[in-house]
C-alpha cells in the first residue's frame, strides 16, 4: 500500500524536527538508537481521538520548537542544586542536568559500593542492550527516548543487598527563556534476588524557559526483591513532562510506589506494571495536586499474569483553579491469574467550581476465582468539617488547607522524607 495516499500522521513535523537533531554516536548502542529512529519514522503523536489519550490534548506541546537539551552541568553550581537534595539522600544523590550525568554535583559517598553506573561507557554494554526496551512498551515517546539514548542511570542492586539511605536520582532540566528544550532521562533498575532498595526519582526544573522532559524508567524485580519507589514530579509551571514507569515483578517481589505530581503545565505518567511471578505484591499510591490551568494525566496498566498475586492502588487528585486531572487505571487479571487479590480506588477532591476531573477505573478479569474491587469518588470539602475547625478559632482558609492536607495524608504516609510536606505548597497547614 502506498503511504503517500494517506494523510500524514499527526505530529510528524514535530517528530521530524527532533529526529533531524539526534546525534549518531559510534558506540555499542548505535544499532539500538538506529532501530528506534527507524520506528519513529512510522509513528505519529497521539491525538484525543485515540482512546488512551482522549482526555489529554498534546497540541500545546506540539506548538513549541524543542531543541535537544545541552550538557550544562558545568554552568549549574552546587548551591543551585542543594535545595533539591533531600537531607536523607545527602550522600546518595545522583544529579542529572538536561539528561546528562553531573558527577561534580552528585554525592554517592554514603553508598557502600557502586550501585549506579553512568555514563554508558561504564556499563556492561551487552547486558544493558539486552535489557533496555524489554520492559517498557514501545509507544512513540518511549521510542523517542531510546532514539536519543545517552546517560542511562543504570542501577544493579546485588543479590541480598539490604536497604541503605534512599537513592535519589535528581533530574534537573534547565531551559533558557529563549529556547524550549527536550530532555530525555532514562533509568534501568535491576534488583537481584532478595535485595531491597528505596529510590527517589525526582524531577525539578531550573531556569525560566520551557523544558519537555520525556523520561523512561524500567525496573526488574527478581525473586523476593523489595523496591520502595518514590516519584516526585515538581517541575515549574512552564514545563511539560511525559514519564513512563515500567515494572516487571518476579515471584514474591514487592513493588511499592508513591508518586506525587504537582508541577508542570502538562504532565502524563504512564505506568506499566506486570506480575510475572506468583505471590508478587504491588502497592501503588498516587497524588496529583493541581491549580491554575495545570493538566495532569495518570494512565496505569497493571497486569496480573500468574496466580496468587495481589495489588493495591490508591490514586488521589486534588484540583483547584481551572486545572484538569485525569486518572485512568486498568487492572488486567489474565486467565491464569487465579486467586488474584486486587483493589483499585481513585478519590478526587475538587476545590473550585472550574476544576475538572476525568476518572476511569477499569477492571478486566479473565480468571474465575479472584477477589477484585474498584471504585472512584469525587467530592468537595464538607461544610461541616470546615465549620468544626472554624469553631476552634482557625480561619476558613487555613481550615480548608488543613482538610486538604488530611485528604492527601493517606498517600503521603510512609514516604521517608521528613521535610516533604514543607515542599508541597498547597499542603502545609502549619507553615
Amino acid at each position: 500500500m502506498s503511504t503517500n495516499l494517506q494523510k500524514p500522521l499527526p505530529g510528524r513535523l514535530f517528530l521530524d524536527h527532533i529526529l533531524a537533531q539526534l546525534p549518531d554516536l559510534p558506540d555499542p548502542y548505535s544499532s539500538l538508537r538506529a532501530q528506534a529512529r527507524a520506528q519513529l519514522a512510522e509513528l505519529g503523536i497521539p491525538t484525543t481521538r485515540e482512546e488512551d489519550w482522549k482526555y489529554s490534548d498534546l497540541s500545546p506541546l506540539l506548538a513549541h520548537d524543542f531543541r535537544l537539551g545541552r550538557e550544562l552541568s558545568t554552568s549549574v553550581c552546587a548551591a543551585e542544586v542543594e535545595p533539591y537534595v533531600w537531607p536523607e539522600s545527602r550522600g546518595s544523590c545522583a544529579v542529572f542536568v538536561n539528561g546528562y550525568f553531573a558527577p561534580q554535583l552528585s554525592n554517592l559517598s554514603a553508598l557502600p559500593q557502586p550501585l549506579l553506573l553512568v555514563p554508558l561507557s561504564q556499563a556492561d554494554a551487552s547486558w544493558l542492550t539486552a535489557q533496555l526496551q524489554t520492559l517498557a512498551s514501545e509507544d512513540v515517546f518511549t521510542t523517542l527516548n531510546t532514539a536519543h539514548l545517552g546517560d542511562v542511570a543504570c542501577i544493579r542492586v546485588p543479590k541480598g543487598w539490604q536497604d541503605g539511605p534512599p537513592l535519589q536520582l535528581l533530574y534537573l532540566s534547565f531551559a533558557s527563556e529563549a529556547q524550549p528544550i527536550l530532555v530525555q532521562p532514562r533509568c534501568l533498575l535491576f534488583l537481584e534476588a532478595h535485595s531491597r532498595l528505596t529510590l527517589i526519582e525526582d524531577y525539578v526544573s531550573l531556569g525560566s524557559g520551557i523544558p519537555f522532559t520525556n523520561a523512561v524508567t524500567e525496573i526488574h524485580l527478581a525473586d523476593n526483591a523489595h523496591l520502595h519507589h518514590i516519584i516526585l514530579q515538581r517541575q515549574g509551571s512552564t514545563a511539560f513532562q511525559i514519564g513512563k514507569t515500567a515494572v516487571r515483578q518476579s515471584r514474591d517481589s514487592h513493588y511499592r510506589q508513591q508518586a506525587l505530581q504537582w508541577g508542570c503545565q502538562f504532565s502524563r505518567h504512564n505506568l506499566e506494571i506486570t506480575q510475572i511471578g506468583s505471590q508478587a505484591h504491588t502497592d501503588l499510591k498516587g497524588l496529583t495536586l493541581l491549580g491554575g490551568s495545570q493538566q495532569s494525566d495518570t494512565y496505569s496498566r497493571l497486569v496480573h499474569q500468574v496466580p496468587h498475586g495481589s495489588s493495591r492502588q490508591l490514586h488521589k487528585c486534588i484540583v483547584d483553579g481551572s486545572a484538569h486531572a485525569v486518572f485512568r487505571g486498568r487492572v488486567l487479571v489474565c486467565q491464569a491469574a487465579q486467586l488474584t487479590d486486587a483493589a483499585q480506588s481513585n478519590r478526587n477532591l475538587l476545590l473550585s467550581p472550574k476544576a475538572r476531573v476525568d476518572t476511569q477505573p477499569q477492571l478486566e478479569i479473565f480468571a474465575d476465582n479472584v477477589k477484585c474491587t474498584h471504585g472512584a469518588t469525587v467530592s468537595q470539602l464538607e461544610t461541616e468539617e470546615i465549620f468544626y475547625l472554624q469553631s476552634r478559632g482557625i480561619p476558613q482558609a487555613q481550615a480548608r488547607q488543613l482538610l486538604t492536607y488530611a485528604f492527601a495524608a493517606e498517600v503521603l504516609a510512609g514516604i521517608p522524607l521528613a521535610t516533604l510536606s514543607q515542599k508541597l505548597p498547597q499542603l502545609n497547614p502549619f507553615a
Partner: protein
Amino acid sequence: MISENSSPILSVRDLTAEIDGTPILRGLNLEIRSGEIHAIMGPNGSGKSTFSKILAGHPDYTVTGGQVIYLGENLLEMEPEERARKGVFLAFQYPIEIPGVSNVDFLRTAYNARQQHRGLPQLDALDFDEFVREKLSIVKMDPAFLERSVNEGFSGGEKKRNEILQMAILEPILAILDETDSGLDIDALRTVANGINSLSKADNAILLITHYQRLLDYVTPDYVHVMEAGRIVTSGDKTLALELEERGYDWIRDQDPAASLTL
C-alpha cells in the same frame, strides 16, 4: 453558680431562624450570666441542637429575626472563627475526624489562634506539649492520643473527652456542650462531667444541651429550660429536669397549649 456580682454573657431575644426555608427557631429568649450553668432539654426536633450551631455560627442556618448579644457585641455579625477567639466554644455532638493531622498540632493551632486574639504569647511545639500534658488529667486522657490523628479511630467516648480537652485548653467564656453525654457509658459520663465541673468558673458560663436528665446528676445546672418547637416553653431550677424525667416531654405539651398547637 448564681451570684449577685455576675455580669451578662449572653442575651438572646426573639431569635428566629430557618434552614432551607424551614423555620426551626420561632422566637427564642435566653439570658446567661457569668458563673451560671444552664441546661436546655427538649425532645428530638425541638431545635436545641440548631440553637447551639447558630450560636457558633454554622453557615447552613439563616437567622431571620431577633438578636444575640454576647459580651455587649452582636454575635450574629461575627465569623465562626472570630466567635471562637472571643471565647465561644461549641463541643460537637459528632466531632469531625481529620486524618493525617495530629491532635497535638491541631490543639496548638487552635490555642495559638486564641492566644493571638487575646494578645498573649503563642506557644511553640515544645512549650505547648508541656502545657497540654497538664490538661490531660482533667479528662483522664492517655498522652498517646496527642500523637494520633484528630479523632480518627477514636471511640465515641474518646471523641467527647477530646472535646472537653479542647475546652480546657481554649478556656472559653461561653461553652456550649451539644449532647456531650450521648453515647457515653457511665464511667465516661462521670469523667466528662468531672471535667466540665472543674472548668466551670465564676467568670465563665456553660450551656448544656441534652436530651436526657442523666448528665445533670453529675453537673448541677442553675437553670433548666425546656425547648419545644423552636422556643423555650418553660424554665426552672434543677428539679424541673427531674420532673421531666418522671413525666416525659408530653407533660410540657399539656402544660403549654401553644406549644402543642405548633406541632
